[in-house]
């Protein structure tokens, strides 16, 4: 299996360090952080800037696939369900192509795709990755729809 990787700092990285390690840029520790309790260091997942971008639009006949590349691997979890919002249209079905956790393909019924406004923003919601704002994977460009 070939795994396509985006350029740049991708994926969730294991910090490999105690998050309480002094950091010159860090804010002074709060009272809670100065707790005398000293738990064993736990592997930590570094927060990284979240990025998502449109990779391709695939024409599969009755279905259009909108493929996104994610700036980090989505942890396979249970409660999160990615949704793609394109204007008023919401797409709820997706899969990871070739199982890649940093790729998402949304499956859009043709009639729903036809209702989507060209130029509408592609918003990724419902995934537990970022607090502020909604990641936008660019805008819908129907002229980029590729035949299989």
């Amino acid at each position: 299996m070939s795994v396509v990787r985006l350029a740049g700092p991708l994926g969730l990285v294991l910090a490999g360090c105690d998050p309480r390690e002094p950091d010159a840029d860090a804010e002074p520790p709060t009272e809670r952080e100065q707790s005398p309790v000293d738990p064993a260091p736990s592997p930590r997942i570094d927060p990284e800037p979240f990025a998502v971008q449109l990779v391709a639009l695939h024409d599969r006949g009755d279905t259009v696939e909108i493929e996104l590349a994610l700036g980090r691997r989505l942890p396979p979890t249970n409660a999160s369900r990615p949704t793609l919002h394109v204007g008023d249209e919401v797409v709820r079905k997706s899969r990871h192509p070739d199982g890649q956790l940093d790729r998402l393909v949304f499956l859009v019924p043709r009639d729903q795709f036809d209702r989507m406004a060209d130029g509408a923003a592609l918003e990724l919601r419902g995934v537990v990755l970022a607090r502020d704002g909604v990641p936008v994977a660019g805008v819908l460009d129907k002229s980029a729809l590729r035949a299989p």
Partner: protein
Amino acid sequence: MKKRALVLVIAAVPTVAQAEPDDPGPFAVQTDEYGFGDAAFFPESLAGVVELRGVIHSPVDLDEGPFPIVVVLHGRHGTCYDPDGPFDDPFANVSQEWPCGSNHEPIPSYHGYDYWAAQLASHGYVVVSIGANGINAADGEADDGGAQARAELIEAHLELWQSFVDTDEFGTKFNDAADLQNVGLVGHSRGGDGVAAFVARNAMRTEPFGLGGALLLAPTDFTRIVVPDVPLAIMLPYCDGDVMDLQGVHFFDDSRYAVPGDATPKYVFTMDRSNHNFYNTVWSPGTFALGGAFDDFEIPEIVFEQLDSHCSVAAGGPRLGEAEQQASFVVYASAFFRTHLGHETEYVDLLRGDADPPAAAAAAEVRTSYMPPDDPASRLTVNRVAAAASLQTNDLGGMVQGVDLSTYDLCGVGPRGGIENYQHCILAPNFFMGELYEGREPHVPGLAHLGLAFAGESTWVNALPEGTDASALSYLQFRAGVDFEDPAAAAGAVDFTIALTDRAGVRATTTLQSWTDALARPPGDLYPVAPKLLLHGVRIPLAAFVDPTAGDPALDLGDLATIELAFDAGAGALLVSDLAFVDAVPPPPGGTDTSGSESGDADTNGDADTSGNADDSTTGALGGTSSSGTEGTTGPAADDDTGGCGGCRSSGRTPGALWSGAIVLLVRRRRRVVSCATA
């Protein structure tokens, strides 16, 4: 934690060591595994192939069977890993595909419960944990997140076991080994949704399997499936970093009154200090380092860029380790199935929240909610708090009043009790990733809560119509939680008076804290994940209100007039639901239980006690009862020769020992002198 209002200060001789639910059983256990390939099953509701694979833990001596069978279904997780790495993060070598690609191996999530399966099998059970990686790889394409596909998979495995009646892939080894009319189900996370869907699917079968219990562990609930007519347990890890909103509590909330005459009990066990993944050893980094295992509470820490004082290990929060968390699961899961499949009665008190958990589960500080079967012998619902009308009239037709309460309102539902136009129970629900998020109010939407706030003397009164007879029932119970947004919500537990009045005017009272400290401000400070507004069960033995030795007129439980929650000190705010009299009075020693409860659910409360717990009728009187014929007053504290009331909050349970009936009787005679809750 359940409080016991009695300290046994009398020397007693332990007679027999008490068995805890997590103790190993008498059967030697064997492990087998079956598999029919990665593409052996094609669910109708999923665009993907699924493995038909399971690991079996069973007694070696299968001739002793047939045994109850428990099917375990794991949740959604990575499906494949590359054994060659990279290992620079938990997901670097993980993929979500099925079957696994070249150089990848299946992540054996179905082996993650072996620790418990072996323990339960030793008590005479066949436990089959099944693989569902194929569903995990494709459930993003299913409208319901794969719930129906998982239900189909459970059915396929049970049908496979049905075929073992005549022959099986192990020769004849498992012929007739499992009793398919006594089936238990466990579903973790999306597996819980799948179990719920299977219960509904099974009911539609021409020849349904006999379901004896369903335990949903940190379940998702995408489609609000109702799970009636099967003993149901929901286990909620308070520090769940995956199903952060604890949406699985809906299964309890939605099912508890769904079917009139539902003869099965339901439970919620809220496991404090516990996360989502550590119940599965393959999802736990300490025991599976090959890929995909992680501490899920790190997700909200990252997303919200903050640690939680209670749930974050890195902040010194008192989270349980992997082994501790698994030990707590063994206790409650085994107690549940041994009660409802094995028809043992020893753990009924534990399941209902009337007994402290054994040591292995103590650290989880389990809170319990219990809903008895819907039959008159087990449940007399006073006020379920169903809709706005419940604030004026209860289920028995009696008048309801909030007297001098500063808040008296309904939340969690709309005005008619549905979820349309529902009202939040907290002031600041969050929008998370563009969606409304109820992470701090798990019961919402769907559960009607009565919100009440008090500052000074005030009362919630439920009048009971003439002829209200609770004399055949054992407990007064309700569910309640502390409104953590209220400025008066302090770290300490809330306290107030609970009063029953009969038609002769006899008013008997007890205090909440004599029985439970469950109503404390919920922990945590990671907005918008914690604290969580969760309701917990409060159960007070009716014997607490009837003390014939008190010298005052005894309350007549056969002719009750009112129930009051009386707030006579301090300030605070609560959410309340499900006020009821419950649990049949047990028969006298040597008598026959006529409670009508289902088999295996025999009430042991108040029996000649052989459990090591003080008898309920005894502890009831000791739990702060006062009885007075004078309206509105609290009876005088009884003489106390125990040295003060501190001891009355201690546990009367003595693990590892049984107390002889003679000692219990002696304590009964002495109950008057150790009563102190009103002091």
